[in-house]
């Protein structure tokens, strides 16, 4: 059943992201020419904020190893556009007061700030903390220090939850509608452990309550930029879909229902019709 003309995702793992064009993944028609990231004019982010997003997403999804990193996927462009648009303005969310930003996390988003404001305030606050802790803004730290700082930020977000007693959903992942799909991971940005113990023993939190969702938003939006359709500015050349083996917007698989354990042979398509 294997179609030898079409590379499987395992073959792609060896090819690596940098080899996208060279290893035979020619788009059906070329995507719009893209502005190199260092020449991109952000719509929402300031220069310093852009530097932070470039540096932070590069650690959240690093470039080395198999598959594209956030930078090759152009995740920073996705985040900038997203924050400039309705998502950044919390256009769909109920934002009337009174607000209780320190509420039990079971009740979710309770800050008066929009996501755009959380990024603005969160980046500034985190950079300040990095200067105090490591002597430089996040973007200027070594990758080791950046990872340690992100771990501390993650732990800080977890502590914001623990401060309020048993956090909701402790030990449980989203159990979805049909009960039996593997539990989703999206949006569970703060769920990982603090592995290298970078958190200093201070009880002072890095983020105030109004900004406590910063880390979760950053991780979630980074993954969204990595995996969403390329029309949103990220997932450049659908490289993340190729990497994991997701066929994108194909959306027609009846003939594959009974093909047990046979990797799907066709590469992804995007909503605008590109192929990879």
């Amino acid at each position, binding site marked *: 059943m294997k179609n030898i003309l079409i590379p499987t995702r395992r073959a792609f793992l060896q090819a690596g992201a940098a080899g996208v064009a060279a290893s035979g993944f020619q788009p059906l028609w070329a995507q719009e020419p893209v502005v190199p990231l260092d020449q991109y004019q952000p719509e929402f982010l300031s220069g310093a904020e852009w530097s932070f997003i470039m540096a932070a997403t590069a650690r959240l999804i690093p470039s080395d190893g198999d598959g594209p990193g956030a930078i090759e996927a152009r995740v920073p462009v996705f985040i900038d556009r997203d924050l400039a648009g309705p998502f950044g303005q919390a256009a769909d969310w*109920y934002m009337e007061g009174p607000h209780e930003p320190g509420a039990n996390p079971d009740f979710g988003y309770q800050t008066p700030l929009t996501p755009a404001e959380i990024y603005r305030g969160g980046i500034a606050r985190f950079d300040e903390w990095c200067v105090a802790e490591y002597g430089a803004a996040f973007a200027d730290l070594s990758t080791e220090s950046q990872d340690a700082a992100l771990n501390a930020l993650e732990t800080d977000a977890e502590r914001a939850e623990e401060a309020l007693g048993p956090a909701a959903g402790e030990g449980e992942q989203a159990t979805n509608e049909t009960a039996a799909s593997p*539990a989703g991971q999206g949006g569970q940005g703060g769920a990982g452990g603090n592995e290298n113990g970078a958190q200093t023993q201070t009880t002072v939190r890095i983020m105030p309550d109004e900004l406590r969702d910063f880390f979760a938003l950053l991780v979630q939006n980074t993954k969204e930029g990595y995996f969403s359709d390329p029309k949103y500015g990220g997932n450049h050349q659908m490289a993340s879909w190729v990497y994991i083996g997701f066929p*994108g917007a194909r959306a027609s*698989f009846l003939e594959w229902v009974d093909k*047990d*354990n046979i990797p799907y042979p066709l590469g992804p398509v995007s909503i605008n019709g590109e192929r990879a």
Partner: protein
Amino acid sequence: MARQDPRKDVVIVGLGWTGAIMGMEMCEEGLEVLALERGPDRETVPNFRYPEVADELRFGVRFDFMQRARQSTLTIRHNTNQTALPYRRFGSFLLGDGVGGAGIHWNGVHWRPMAEELRLRSYVEETFGANIIPEDMQLQDWGVTYEEMEPFLYRFEQVAGIAGVAGNLNGEIQPGGNPFEAPRANPFPMPPLPTTLSNRMFAEAAQAAGYHPFIKAAANASQAYVNPYGMQLGPCNFCGFCERYGCLNYSKSSPQTCILDALKRKPNFQYRTGAEVLRVELAEDGETATGVTYFDETAQEEVFQPADIVILAAYQMHNVHLMLLSGIGQPYDPATGEGVTGRNYSYQMMGSTAAYFRDIDFNPFVGAGANGIAIDDFAINQIDFAAEGFIGGSYISNSQTNGQPIRSLSLPEGTKTWGAEWKRGIGEWYGRSMGVGTHGSNMAYRDTYMDLDPTYTDRHGRPLLRLTFDWKPNEIAMTQFMRQRIEPLVESMNPTSWTSSYREDGASYDTTSYQTTHNVGGTVMGNDPATSALNRYLQSWDVHNVFVMGAGAFPQNLQYNPTGMVGGLTYWSADAIRRDYLPNPRPLV
């Protein structure tokens, strides 16, 4: 002053599943019917068209087909000592909006209730004794029996075009079906959907353990089908963009694919979009409604729409909200236990085990909303409640619905959620997991209810609905019982690793992660006006020309997905209106 529009025989609030069914039924009586829908109009083309609809970020993650919290939301708290906070960003449940309601973006997992569930209090008392019922559990009978409901459940199955295998045909157990279900008079209108590898692995494991696996009944068509209204469905192509999306393929049962085109051809039917009903208006004596007042989004003004019959079909929460805002039925008070409107909210107890297989490619994107294999060996009528120490049950199932990477990518326990380890993990594990889950009942309690919030208001200045809800020990015990049945099944499949997620002692209700949109109660049906807001025909006890559809009628939640019963009850109520109420409008009980 509000504008006043010409009188109608029937006004229907909301044009989702129940509103569309009622529209058809009332039009067939020759009545002048107007449906008022707050959201936009929606049709398969252009709204669910390929490829635009295959957009995970827009529909799966940002919920573009759904109600926006900014337009309408509620407040939530765990108990009466807390101050409720707004549900600002949707998570735990996702409400429908626009023509078709949640009926466009549901999965289509279809069940009938068990006969025992519809008379649960009587069943528990007769079988185990009243003393096993926890003091704060407000267990109730529904006021209808399964035997009465059977023809109406079937009517919905015919209209929706359900694909499945009967397990019990007129008392005869059928091979391949659910042997524990109540008797059906007819087979399903369509054969079941095909099965995926994950489905078959689960079925084999369940069979080997001595259980009785069957293919889940689906409101996803398995072949070409024409329903009683002449509406046509085509076979589902396992597109993998089902739940949270409109169907691109005319395969998922929805008001659009099963009812609306036929309804729109009726000369006596009209509908208006951008028309949010603000309240039901009552006559001076409070015994009848005179019509409804709605906000006309286009004209930006309030409109009074007079009508002889008012049908609330706005979804459970909005029906409760409208009842409270309009003063229909006494609001429930948990301190005294008196009052009925808002009483007995309940939800659905979910849990699951994810299993990871290094050498198996499940192709998870080959998925359909209602695909799957289930066992009902631990259903409500199969468990000794006295011995196990809880009241309730669950179906256990595997289903393969989608492989969307933002929301459904599952990694082995302990994998970091970002960085090099995460990136390696997604390459190694995407498509290499399957899950087995429990979908369990939830009883209602003295302090699980809905009323009006004292602080927060909506864009029309109306108080938000307030939900008070938390998990109780009975449901934790039930879900832990299911966990003990599921984990050995998963282990018997020899996965590389597995990880469980079930609520444990002390777990509180987390509003941020999606569970189900199976919110029930608040406009409970029954035979006792002291404990139910509606009589057995879904008619308000107090205002006899107001009928209230939807899962608000459930006195406590089924162990099943609700819409099979919601659809059946709508036909049951419509039948009572047509046969009994129209000739002589009055309280039917």
